[in-house]
């Protein structure tokens, strides 16, 4: 790698070789983020346990619920609601995947070894997304099946083959992957763990609460364009709100936030020092 500047024969390393080398080094670094296994374990606890708690509760108390809350009850969303807790950990994982490297100073070694900085970030994001997506999709299915097993008639429940359900359950994994990527790109932008975490949690968790406090029509109109409440439409079966966004429209809003963070991240990482 460091031979790139020194020895001419290596300068012509093919794109494929370079990609493979970057992928390998990024994979080693990703694997050895110390809190990685803890985060993945935490999500594996939160998703099934929340599904068990909430669906058990509603299955048990169905008879006492009002007709209005029965009508607005979304069996898929309730079984996947643990995502609202798990996103905290997945988002933080995305942040420290990058900022951990800035804190330890390893990033300087990384950029000397691979001066194509955008390539480093892209590879980091790809590896992160692949692992988180696979893991969270499995957990999303697990939470769904646990939840539906606890909801039996007369409580509202659905089967995986019912219209829209498969999209919603796959959506749970997709949502968490994008949240992690949002954290990762904010990490590239801010380069420091506390600042990046505060920014991510601010956008993701605090903004819906802050907008909710405003009250009235304005509050409902703004809420749907937040990454959290917009993105959540992908794992809901019933869509409400001021504009009644569908699953993919809501998901596109979250994706737009990720894109808005990613674009300056790719630009600035090439210009700023490490």
């Amino acid at each position, binding site marked *: 790698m460091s031979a790139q500047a020194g020895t001419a024969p290596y300068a012509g390393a093919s794109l494929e070789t370079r990609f493979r080398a970057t992928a390998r080094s990024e994979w080693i670094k990703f694997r050895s983020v110390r*809190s990685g296994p803890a985060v993945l374990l935490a999500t594996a606890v939160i998703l099934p346990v*929340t599904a068990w*708690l*909430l669906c058990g*509760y509603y299955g048990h*108390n169905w008879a006492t619920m009002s007709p209005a809350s029965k009508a607005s009850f979304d069996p898929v969303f309730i079984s996947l*609601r*643990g995502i*609202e*807790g798990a996103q*905290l*950990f997945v988002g*933080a994982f995305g*942040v*420290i995947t990058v*900022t951990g490297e800035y*804190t330890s100073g390893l990033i300087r070694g990384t950029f000397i070894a691979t001066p194509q900085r955008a390539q480093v970030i892209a590879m980091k994001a790809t590896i992160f997304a692949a692992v988180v997506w696979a893991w969270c999709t499995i957990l999303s299915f697990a939470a769904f099946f646990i939840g539906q097993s606890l909801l039996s008639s007369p409580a509202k429940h659905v089967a995986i083959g019912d219209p829209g359900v498969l999209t919603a359950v796959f959506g749970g994994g997709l949502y968490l992957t994008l949240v992690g990527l949002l954290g990762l790109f904010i990490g590239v932008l801010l380069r420091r*763990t*506390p600042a990046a*975490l*505060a920014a991510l*949690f601010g956008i993701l*968790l*605090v903004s819906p*609460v*802050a907008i909710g*406090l*405003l*009250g*009235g029509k304005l509050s409902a109109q703004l809420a749907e364009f937040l990454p959290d409440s917009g993105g959540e439409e992908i794992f809901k079966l019933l869509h409400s709100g001021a504009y009644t966004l569908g699953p993919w429209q809501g998901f596109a809003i979250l994706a737009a936030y990720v894109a808005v963070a990613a674009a300056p991240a790719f630009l600035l990482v090439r210009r700023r020092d490490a």
Partner: protein
Amino acid sequence: MMSETIQATTATSRRRATPSALLRARAALSAEWIKLRSLRSMLVTLVLAAVFCIGYADLLCWRFTLRWHTFDAASKAAFNPLDTNFNDLVIGVLFFGVLGALVVTNEYGNGLIRTTLAATPQRGLFLAAKAALLVPLALVSSAVIIFAAFLTGQGILAGHVPHVTLADPGVLGRVLGAIFYLTAASLIGLFIGVIARSAAAAMTCVFGAFLVLETLLDSLHGGVWQHTVPYLPSNLGNALWLSHSGSLASPTVAALVLAAYVIVLGVVATFSLRSRDA
């Protein structure tokens, strides 16, 4: 093993010269004061807290004065000027929790903690000194923020819609309750930081405990939930400053349970600090 070595060195130094407990405490306090004063994120967090808590409270009050004529009689009757003023504390508390966490995790992040614990091997004393400085800092800044938010917020409401003054029954109690909640949150953040030893883990726990837990569990009522959900840290805080209590605990109970949280976390943090490496 490390603490044994440190204890051994303390024993040697004690033979040489035994600094009195008072002197040692004073040295620990002045060292912690220098570190606290020079922590950049401390100032940033406090300024952001002030801007948000005062600014957003004023914005919410102002919005109510604008929307007042659209309210029907029932909504007008349900309007509570103090709740409207303090509603943004569900977010404001996060600044104080994070402030407490950063005060200690910053030291773990840059490795200064190893020097600190070598200089002050009495780890309990180190934590006590940190807490002893954080409490007045959080108390004074939250008092300034809360009173400013209250006075400006009620000032905006006055003349347009119902408003309250500090002399009205129960108002001063809610104001002091809010200050107590924010100060307790900063101590909870500090102890979580000591237990977590990293900024990322501690901040995630603070946001989880004060924001996400409540969102996830607040819809559950009855049975076991009736006896647990009101005692989540954020619901205890709400009980201290919200005037309509609903299913929340009474303010006295909430203050006591919140204090119990702080004490239990403090004990756990002290033991964790003394038995684990830095």
